[in-house]
């Protein structure tokens, strides 16, 4: 389940303060901000620049370099589907087509009901049990169309039970 707390400068400052003692603190701080807010909000850039004594361009450069840092809030759950060679050998492309049709989104998109954001990933380290996907922090192996539908349904059912 993704955290999607609305932006709070105060909260962001506290997070920055909690990590500033680290050497090379910017990545750990960006991870912590994204964990709290679900993405790196626009006001985070000038705030980080000011707090870390960097230029805005520097901060923006770092945020945009890494595929993982998002600029907009994701859906409630992130589905990362492996596109790398070992999963390709087991027809991951067919699975991805199925997932796109099933959810009605493209890679990088979020479903209309905000339930799922679908992201491509290059290898999840589960290459002997592909095709692999990761839903939030839960890894799944040997995923086919039917198993995907069951996993997506179970994710929503769990959410309702909570």
């Amino acid at each position: 389940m993704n955290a999607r707390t609305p932006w709070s400068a105060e909260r962001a400052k506290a997070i920055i303060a909690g990590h500033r003692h680290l050497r090379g603190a910017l990545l750990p701080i960006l991870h912590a901000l994204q964990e709290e807010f679900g993405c790196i909000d626009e006001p985070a850039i000038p705030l980080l620049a000011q707090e870390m004594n960097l230029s805005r361009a520097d901060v923006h450069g770092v945020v945009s370099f890494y595929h993982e840092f998002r600029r907009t809030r994701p859906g409630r759950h992130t589905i990362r589907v492996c596109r790398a060679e070992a999963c390709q050998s087991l027809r991951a492309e067919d699975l991805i087509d199925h997932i796109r049709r099933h959810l009605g989104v493209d890679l990088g998109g979020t479903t209309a009901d905000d339930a799922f954001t679908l992201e491509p990933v290059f290898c999840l380290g589960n290459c002997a049990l592909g095709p692999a996907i990761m839903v939030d922090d839960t890894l799944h192996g040997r995923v086919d169309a039917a198993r995907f539908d069951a996993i997506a349904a179970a994710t929503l059912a769990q959410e309702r039970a909570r």
Partner: protein
Amino acid sequence: MNGQLVTVYVPRDAAALSVGADAVAAAIRAEAKARNLPLRIVRNGSRGMLWLEPLVEVQTQTGRVAYGPVTPEAVPGLFAAGFLEGGAHPLGHGLTEAIPYLAKQERLTFARCGIVDPLSVEDYRRHGGFRGLERALAMRPAEIVAAVTESGLRGRGGAGFPTGIKWKTVLDAAGPEKFVCCNADEGDSGTFADRMIMEGDPFCLIEGMTIAAVAVGAAQGYIYIRSEYPHAIATMRAAIKLAYAEAWLGDGIHGTAHRFHLEVRVGAGAYICGEETSMLESLEGKRGVVRAKPPVPALEGLFGKPTVVNNVLSLTSVPIILDKGAGYYRDFGVGRSRGTLAFQLAGNIRRGGIVEKAFGVTLRELLYDFGGGTLSGRPIRAVQAGGPLGAYLPPSLFNLPKDYEAFAAQEAMVGHGGIVVFDDSVDMARQARFAMEFCAIESCGKCTPCRIGAVRGVEVIDRIIAGREVEANLTLLQDLCEVMTDGSLCAMGGMTPIPVRSALKHFPEDFTRTPAPLAAE
């Protein structure tokens, strides 16, 4: 511990979890409770026989007995068959150690993985853990470095650089401050050995890094783990905490004056951050743009200080070298490839997993004797060895022994030991296209041949696939590959041509097909 309590092992390895290990553990616990049978469940790492996961083991008088792949639904039947005493069952495989896949291996680096409780220092010690470090603490730094050099250990991250020579450079470098950085970015498709050992035997990495620190005089270390590995991150962090609590890390390691502090840092989804200088930039909190070498990281690494950068498998091979001696390790292997490598069988393979063997084992043995051919049951047409920058090899080369030099002679690479299998439904032109696409997406952007060349590469291959001016475009593709090979700063742009050219060389027919008429779908 309680003598009559039966111990059942259910892996906590991410691959095992991906096919339901948690649900199996819960089912075993529930069934035991219902039957009023007290038992102890240990969540171990994986034995590396991934097609059998979840692989449940029961400790019996004669040894550990294996069952797998176990589903929650199969659990009541296992109890009924008396699996707690090692009883026969269709999912049973007898003694784990006697399963041929495992029995035929030479497990040095992975000796404890899947056997111990990954988060028990006591269990680690019981299985020989920290003996290498204890030895190292009693040696002079130069002696430690000499032992690693003599062992013949070469970097397992891909480049195969002698580890001892790298350490000597750092040891000889001046400076009050030095670092040891573990490269756990493991971005290559088809590789998972770093992940498995971090989840299954995390103290082994801590021990290897501490030995490196003592050897070169470093007081601070970082493990850079890719964010796609949440389980490995959690396990390493928990293990580090335990190691501090028992004085295997921190100030005054194991009652000596040595100091070593260790921290996990998390990547952010950039393949290039596995390249060592990009990783150092990332650790410094910057964009992961590759640095020009020289200076080498051993002299000017993290924050400009002398730094050891080693792969997880290089560092986890160090404890046994110090414990059993350089000669013991060196006696495995062939030519200038000494010791063992944890090969990873991945993709369309029936028995995928970890096969730790001495160098010299052939692809054929790995693919058929261990791997059992494809999962689909169709013939193997190609394997990609050594990750996304590695060559695609046809069956005519399967007699090639796994050896750095023998592979290099075929313009191929052993790399991190990953082997991805494809059956005869593979379209090699598409695979070549993917190699270029991957480079275009993951390029750090510093140099033009890589950044722009890869984008052009995708376009050219698209034209070839579409059957447009095939001859001219094939020539263009060869030229492009040459420019990328010669003009790139690092192996990302410099080696992307390898999978492309090997596909062209060994599977030319896939590039000259008349395109299928547009299908209805």
